[in-house]
């Protein structure tokens, strides 16, 4: 009865303002992080001026070194690829309310597993067998590593932030232990490494570019994780668990399994990042795997508000900043840790900006509600 009394024009007006409200509300999630980025750039400029350097020169060098030419774009995208995987390793557990920061450990072990399984396989098998075996070994190693973090969290009540970071240190020891010991390639006197996997087992670039396939895999992984988290029962259950564990348990959701599967999936993705580092860049597993991608990935995921689709552009942005590091270092005589300082400031300002949600009048729904 009441519905019938609404005129068609009034109903249209209602829908319009609902649409506008939804737009206002979701634009909040884009505008506030962008404001935070601008504010952190301003803060960093202040920092540069305090140490007597020109912020204008810095940001123009970052632009030139990261995005200015086709060559720098390719460099940026090569760095964005592991960042995407590492950020997914943070974003998936974050949906369940977990802060996992040890993706670097899963990346290292994934790369190591890929390099290690290649040692016995390369002399006896063709690349049709070796490449999938390396890929799987990396995914399994990473999955088990972070899956263990999830197990500790759910079944032993151990804080996942601390345990995952401890496991990162253990992972570096595992890598060094084997690479400098039993699995060291004696024919390479310079840097302790596993035996080279050979050119035929390397994964090549995407045709027409010098960017390896890891980027394409990363973008596909982001799309799949988005579908998984937003369009499936699994994702719904995971988000429910993240919202309120007790309520989820009360509903009879298998919280333990959700935690385990999500963490294992997250770790597997980080392990795959390690696979691409070995199979597309280094050609063998060694200490070069410890490059900090896992830690920058934490920042990427937080900047993207743990949204898998937003991870792609954010990873490209931070990949660009990282790849311009060398140029900035040479031209401005700044230490290589400059990028770390900028990243730290971005992270802090972003977290401060969390407090603004729901407080700015512009984003408040104005229509019917």
């Amino acid at each position, binding site marked *: 009865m009441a519905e019938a009394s609404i005129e068609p024009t009034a109903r249209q007006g209602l829908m319009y303002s609902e649409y506008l409200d939804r737009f206002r509300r979701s634009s909040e999630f884009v505008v506030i992080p962008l404001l935070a980025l601008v504010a952190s750039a301003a803060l960093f400029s202040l920092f540069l001026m305090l140490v007597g350097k020109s912020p204008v020169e810095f940001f123009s060098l970052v632009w030139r070194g990261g995005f200015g030419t086709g060559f720098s774009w390719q460099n940026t995208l090569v760095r964005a690829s592991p960042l995407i995987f590492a950020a997914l390793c943070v974003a998936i557990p974050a949906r369940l309310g977990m*802060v996992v*920061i040890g993706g670097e450990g899963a990346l290292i072990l994934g790369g190591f597993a890929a390099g290690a399984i290649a040692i016995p396989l390369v002399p006896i098998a063709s690349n049709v067998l070796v490449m999938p075996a390396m890929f799987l070994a990396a995914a399994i190693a990473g999955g088990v590593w972070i899956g263990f973090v999830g197990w*500790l969290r*759910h*079944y*032993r*009540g*151990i*804080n996942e*932030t*601390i*345990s995952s*970071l*401890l*496991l990162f*240190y*253990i992972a570096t*020891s*595992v890598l*060094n*232990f084997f690479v*400098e*010991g039993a699995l060291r390639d004696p024919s390479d006197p310079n840097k302790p490494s596993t035996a080279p996997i050979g050119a035929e087992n390397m994964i090549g670039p995407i045709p027409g570019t010098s960017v390896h396939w890891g980027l394409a895999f990363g973008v596909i992984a982001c799309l799949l994780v988005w579908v998984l988290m937003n369009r499936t029962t699994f994702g719904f259950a995971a988000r429910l668990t993240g919202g309120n564990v007790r309520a989820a348990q009360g509903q009879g959701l298998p919280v333990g399994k959700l935690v385990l599967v999500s963490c294992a999936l997250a770790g597997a993705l980080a392990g795959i990042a390690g696979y691409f580092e070995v199979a597309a860049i280094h050609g063998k597993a060694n200490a070069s795997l410890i490059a900090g991608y896992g*830690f920058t990935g*934490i*920042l990427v995921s*937080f900047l993207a508000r743990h949204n898998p689709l937003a991870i792609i552009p954010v990873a490209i942005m931070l990949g660009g900043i990282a790849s311009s590091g060398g140029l900035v270092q040479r031209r401005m005589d700044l*230490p*290589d*840790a*400059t*990028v*770390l*300082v*900028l*990243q*730290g*400031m971005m*992270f*802090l300002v*972003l*977290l*401060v900006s*969390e*407090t603004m*949600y729901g407080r700015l009048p512009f984003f408040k729904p104005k229509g019917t509600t």
Partner: protein
Amino acid sequence: MGDDAGFTTVLFAMIAGAIRVSTPFLFVSLGECLTEKSGRINLGLEGTLVFGAMSAYAISYQTGSPWLGVVVAGIAGMMFGAIHGFICKLPKVNDIAVGIAMMLFGTGLAFFFGKAYIQPAAPRLPSISLGWWSDDPQVRQALDVNPLFLVGIVLAIVLWWGFRNTRLGLIVRTTGDSAPAALALGVNVNVVRFLATAVGGFFAGVGGAFLSLYYPGSWTEGLSSGQGLMAVALVIFARWNPLACFGAALLFGAAGALGPALQSIGISRGYHFFNAAPYLMTLAIMILSISPKRSLKGAPGELSITK
């Protein structure tokens, strides 16, 4: 016979290591203990530790006074704690995430300003010899104690006594156990947590000064690999009791000394494995001492990490 000599060498090295290596663990864990008692967690103490180490070394090199370095490291740590405390005070901000950000920011800043101080040698802190009664050089070496170690012991006792017997201790504990109860007592919860985080940062900064000015005794970028983080885990293990923090710090120090000690008698195989020993031990201790079935004795009720 040779085995026996090797064994005593390792044993002495581990006792000496427990005394020498434990000091940064002790300071960071006492700082974290104070912060957590007030109901907040500061995971960023790893960054504070590294920055404290860098600033202490830089000041000691510039002024020639290592003790001034210690003070400056403490003040720098206090600033980091104050930033952490200020940001966490804002509504809707997650203290664990802020800790991670402070960890990255602190290490980044330390590496940025510390680049110039990697090479030069700064004056180091003196040590007090407590082994004068023994003729054995190993015993003497083991009992060469840094004054900061003794300060740490006194601090642990003062905190332990203070939490139980003083009005201030009661205010901190109430704030940590129940913010509404503290509010009802007329306590400003935010101010108490802010101060507890800042003072906790001061302790962690001093712990960093020990790293660069006494043992290992120089500034490098790999100076602290996770010691600040292990100290956070150590506080949980010590059940938020400052005296237990001291015991746990000794244990962690001994574990950290295992690798170098074995290397000194020629066992270099598995060096990386023994380097991982402190991390493995932290993890094992957490697995053994935490149960999801019951809440932890002495845990502050407002703490996000134990929920």
